[in-house]
């Protein structure tokens, strides 16, 4: 109840401003802004009839277009549902329990495509996913917009900013009250944002159904940031969380392989990794003395200092030097690629021997990421990938 009153108050406050700007004529008077409230005490004036008639024509065509679109969507939905049942029949499955996943599988089976881009391949999806959402009617039969900020041309966006402003004021009032009462109520308002990030511009656009420029988006995010840094921002946690998405920690996603026991009852894991056209297959055995074997030779298989250091790096990082044995075989062109693949494989194996905190540290150090860099192709008209022939002015 209080919330609704608040909304109405807010709207009316806002509206008063709009009224002063747009409604210079004293003839127009509005009592409430609620779009559903059709009982507005509008005094009908002489010229209003013609105005409404003029507007009606524009409104009519708009309404017609809206109707056509609605019908179109309905038709598409109908066809989609029928199509689903047809597909289910074709695939011999139960039409009642035919999910979107089954639809995708069926399409992939019936229309195999060699196209590269997934979006170019044949698909059958719910019309809501294919056809962009449109806003509901933004103004009524008389041309009167429902939203007070309609004439900003991005009412939802600016509405959001206004909401923020009001909430800011409310938090400030609350803070004043707290200071007046002498309460040092402290909940760190920044901590609850950990592990999340602001939604992207695209997702915001799809929610607001309005296109935003980059500066508008960054403006909004900056305002949000400022808002979230308020001492009592926790009170508006739900509101803020609408605009933040969870950052999934890699370590939660990657499954750590199991340790198995070999003949002599020592735990070991294996992993194979690639880097730059070289492969490595590494076995890390626990309860070891630090023996390192690469293709049957010791670490001096690699002649360069940097190569040797690369092999040692994951072991040293996890303090496992001298505690595990490493048996590696590598193949492929080039020492650097071989070394990189062995390093990645050792790091991946070491995940089984260390605790979660060290794994996270390894991830941050870049030990657990595949290095996707490849040799860049030489282009015609150039001696190398980037190098150009000598430029002659004439």
């Amino acid at each position, binding site marked *: 109840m209080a919330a609704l009153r608040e909304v109405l108050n807010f709207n009316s406050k806002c509206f008063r401003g709009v009224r002063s700007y747009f409604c210079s004529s004293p003839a127009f008077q509005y009592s409430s802004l609620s779009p559903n409230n059709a009982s507005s005490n509008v005094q009908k004036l002489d010229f209003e009839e013609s105005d409404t008639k003029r507007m009606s024509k524009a409104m009519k065509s708009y309404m017609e277009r809206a109707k056509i679109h609605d019908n179109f969507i309905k038709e598409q939905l109908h066809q989609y549902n029928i199509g689903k049942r047809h597909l289910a029949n074709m695939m011999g499955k139960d039409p009642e329990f035919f999910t979107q996943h089954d639809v995708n599988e069926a399409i992939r089976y019936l229309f195999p495509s060699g196209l590269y881009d997934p979006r170019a391949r044949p698909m059958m999806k719910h019309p809501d996913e294919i056809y962009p959402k449109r806003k509901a009617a933004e103004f009524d039969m008389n041309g009167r917009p429902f939203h007070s900020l309609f004439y900003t041309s991005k009412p939802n966006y600016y509405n959001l900013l206004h909401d923020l402003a009001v909430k800011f004021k409310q938090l400030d009032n609350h803070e004043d009250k707290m200071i007046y009462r002498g309460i040092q109520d402290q909940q760190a308002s920044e901590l609850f944002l950990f592990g999340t990030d602001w939604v992207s511009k695209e997702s915001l656009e799809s929610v607001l159904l309005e296109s935003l420029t980059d500066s508008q988006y960054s403006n909004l995010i900056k305002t949000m940031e400022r808002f979230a840094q308020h001492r009592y921002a926790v009170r508006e946690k739900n509101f803020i969380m609408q605009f933040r998405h969870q950052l999934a920690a890699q370590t939660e996603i990657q499954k750590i392989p199991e340790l198995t026991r070999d003949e002599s009852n020592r735990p070991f894991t294996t992993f194979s990794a690639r880097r730059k056209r070289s492969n490595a297959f590494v076995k890390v055995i626990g309860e070891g003395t630090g023996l390192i074997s690469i293709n049957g030779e010791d670490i001096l298989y690699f002649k360069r*200092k940097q190569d040797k250091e690369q092999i040692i790096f994951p072991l040293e990082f996890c303090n496992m030097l001298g505690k595990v044995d490493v048996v590696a075989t590598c193949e492929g062109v080039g020492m650097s690629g071989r070394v990189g693949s062995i390093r990645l494989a050792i790091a991946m194996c070491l995940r089984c021997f260390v605790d979660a905190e060290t794994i996270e540290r390894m991830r941050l150090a870049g030990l657990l990421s595949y290095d996707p860099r490849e040799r860049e192709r030489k282009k015609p008209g150039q001696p190398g990938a980037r190098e150009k022939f000598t430029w002659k002015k004439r």
Partner: protein
Amino acid sequence: MMRYSRTCNIFRVWRRFSSISAESVPVTESITNGIFRTNESNPVNHRVEHNSRFYSISEPVKKQLFAGGGLPKEYQSLSETLNGLCIMVRKPAIELIHYLNKTNFDAPVLRYVLYGKTGVGKSLSLAHIVHYGSSAGFVLVHVPWVPKWFQYVKVATPSSVHANKYDQPIEAVEWLKHFSTQNGHLLDKLELKTSNTYTWSKREVTAEGSPLSELIDLGLNRAKYATGCIVALLDELKKAASSKQCRVLVVIDGFNSFFSRKSNVIREDKSMVLPSDFLLTDALLSLTRNDWNNGAVVVSVDPSAHPPELRESPLPRYLLGKTGFEHLDPFVPIEVQNYNDKEFRSQIDYYIERNWLQQPKARTDNGRAELSFTSGKHPYSLMRLVAPY
């Protein structure tokens, strides 16, 4: 003022040339409470207790023994930087010293072959043995690095002594100089005499019964006959040793080069002169045969003494080939291995004490582990790993 300058000088001398007199080198307590130095600077007394400890060689001894070669170049320059030549006493050298001390010199000469990967410490072990031989009163026949005689020959002339063989005048003179520096005082003391007459030309003759130093001087002055002089000298030494006039220690580094198939000398018809076609080869092969007594032969075989195609294995049978193996057989093989934990620790302690390793992490166990695993405890790799260049 005299007094002040004298003490000042002594202080400067002690600080800069701390290894000049072996007795003045203090036994430094290692930072890890182990001891990595030893005061025992006479290699004759080196025993198992001295294993993995550094002993220092004084400057005059170093000049006498190694002026003509014998220390690996990088090790020599490093020792100059680190203010004194110190060699680690390791198992192969201790073993050899033990054998040499206990040798029955009436029996035919025993051959010892040091083998191992390149860079593992064979040359330094041989240097240790050279010092031992000098301290124990052996006459040293020391060839510092055989491939130098065949891969970088400056001049090769057809021999005057032997029809089908080749001389190496410059290398021979160099070696004679090295020999006389190493053994000069000993030869004077022993007063060895030639047992044959050597006619070099119409006017130059070395009569029977002339001192060996005359032979050496002739070789030093007349490069043309230097190789021949060496042949004669080694022959005489063999006879002298067998007749108990002196005791001879033969130390050769890179022995397998005598049996390699490459040299940089090419005849006019583009055919290569093999090491077996050189007169010096014959001389030394004769000396390393076990047909004499009252001496010992210590030899090393190294893959790097062969051209790159022949470096597959560090083992003696492969490196010597059939001829070489049959020549040396039977021999005592002594393997030189990578550092063990104690030796490695000692080496790191030495570097830290000499301020060669300056990172504080080097003193921690983690730092030592990192060095140990990155170098694979291989001596040469460790030296290159901690080098600044």
